[in-house]
């Protein structure tokens, strides 16, 4: 396997993009990435999307996007792993380059969620249809059950959950592409409508339209295109039971710890070597659980850690979700994993503006599907 670099990125603003179709969104992000990287062609492309079929009634999305990007006949492949579709698309693009099969590859992700679909029902297809969804559970409901178990076992509080949202909104305030650029307080979160106890509306990531794309190439070719490139030093993936009820524990996500263990081994690093992380905060509780399963904080201490500012840009030993995370930046499901890679890339190449983490050398992106039945972790290093 040869070394691989990320050499450029592009994305749309995240939000309610009423005037743009799913094709417009993907193509805009991809053209921005191609221009940013300075490449004149691509050899293949990957499209991360959770469910264009349910959201806009369009399947065969990889061919649609190659066509509208003006790239046919390049090989174009759709990658689906629910909310981890984007991260998994990045990993497949990485493997395509690392294996020597392709040289310049586009990894993109897209979701158009505001075109009239029953979004709660569409997202719920990432859970077990016959035994979870049939019995009335929703996605906020699944993470709410994780939250109640975590609160019961470790005395995690609603205030600690709210602290995740407050921190991520503060970070997103400085991200021009974020959906919600508004600073909020603990009380704003605790006074917002309850969605699934104990998760309030502001504990949940929003419904978002958006697209994101990056360009990868062999590391030894990167400087032909740009002086702003980073090296991919780990790319791993793991799976777990589709139903939350099947897990031995509801307060740990095995796919996350399993993918993390492999990623640290591949990169020859420890959790303390990571300078910043983008993690999958689809709900505030997920950032807490994931920050523990990635080894940043001890099991059960993730809530306390965020409350103590240990994951803030200014005061934290490990700034988490400097982009604003899914919570503030928005969560266009298939685009999320790529947008996480983009934030890490911007941080490691010194382009993160007011969100910049000083001396950032190594960044981790963790993207997961469903209630944690799939997870991919990618670690990037500044060159």
């Amino acid at each position, binding site marked *: 396997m040869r070394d691989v670099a990320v050499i450029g990125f592009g994305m749309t603003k995240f939000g309610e993009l009423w005037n743009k179709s799913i094709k417009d969104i993907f193509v805009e992000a991809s053209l921005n990435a191609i221009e940013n990287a300075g490449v004149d062609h691509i050899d293949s492309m990957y499209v991360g999307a959770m469910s264009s079929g349910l959201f806009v009634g369009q399947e065969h999305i990889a061919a649609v996007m190659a066509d509208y990007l003006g790239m046919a006949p390049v090989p174009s492949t759709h990658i689906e792993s629910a909310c981890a579709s984007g991260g998994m698309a990045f990993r497949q693009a990485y493997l395509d380059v690392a294996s020597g099969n392709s040289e310049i590859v586009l990894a993109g992700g897209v979701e158009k969620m505001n075109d009239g679909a*029953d979004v*709660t*029902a569409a997202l719920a297809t990432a859970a077990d249809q016959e*035994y979870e969804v049939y*019995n009335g559970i929703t996605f*906020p409901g699944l993470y709410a059950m994780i939250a*109640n*178990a975590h609160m019961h076992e470790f005395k995690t509080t609603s205030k600690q959950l709210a602290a995740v949202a407050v921190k991520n909104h503060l970070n997103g305030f400085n991200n021009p592409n974020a959906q919600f650029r508004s600073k909020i307080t603990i009380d704003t979160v605790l006074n917002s*409508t309850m969605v699934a106890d104990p998760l309030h509306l502001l504990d949940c990531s929003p419904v978002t339209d958006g697209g994101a794309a990056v360009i990868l190439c062999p590391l030894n070719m990167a400087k032909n295109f740009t002086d702003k490139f980073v090296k991919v030093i780990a790319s791993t993936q793991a799976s777990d039971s589709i139903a939350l*009820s099947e897990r031995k524990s509801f307060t740990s996500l095995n796919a996350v710890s399993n993918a993390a263990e492999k990623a640290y081994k591949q990169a020859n690093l420890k959790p303390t070597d990571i300078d910043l992380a983008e993690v999958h905060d689809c709900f505030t509780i997920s950032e807490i659980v994931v920050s523990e399963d990635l080894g940043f904080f001890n099991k059960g201490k993730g809530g306390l850690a965020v409350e103590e500012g240990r994951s803030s840009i200014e005061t934290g030993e490990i700034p988490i979700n400097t982009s604003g995370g899914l919570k503030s930046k928005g969560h266009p499901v298939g685009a999320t994993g790529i947008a996480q890679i983009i934030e890490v890339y911007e941080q490691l190449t010194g382009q993160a503006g007011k969100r910049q983490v000083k001396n950032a050398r190594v960044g981790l992106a963790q993207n997961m599907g469903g209630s944690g039945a799939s997870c991919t972790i990618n670690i990037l290093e500044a060159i």
Partner: protein
Amino acid sequence: MISPRYVREIPQRYRLEALKCKCGKINFPPRLVCPSCKSREFETITLSDEGKILTYTIIRVASDIFSRETPYAVAIIETKEGAKLTAMIADSNLEDVKIGKKVRLEFRKIQDEGVSGLHCYGYKAIVT
């Protein structure tokens, strides 16, 4: 007309049928391969209707088909045999739904297939 997709699940949903693997793991719903030991040899058992709440939530925003029932509780229940399943809580005060509470599983209507479609049945849990 009852859909084949619905009929396939009747033994589990109506009668709580599960597959006990020779390694001891109870698989509910049934599977072709035991995820614990990879065996494909099972004995069919019927789960008891007694269990306890391992974790829960109260759904206040539901998908369209359940939107008229909010707020309602959903819990992960562990049966006496150690099988774990996700079930809606019925006929109980929401304040009584807590981790560790004992429940009884009962045969109930769960949803309808479409506005004037088939009634769909299964199990719900009642706090005892």
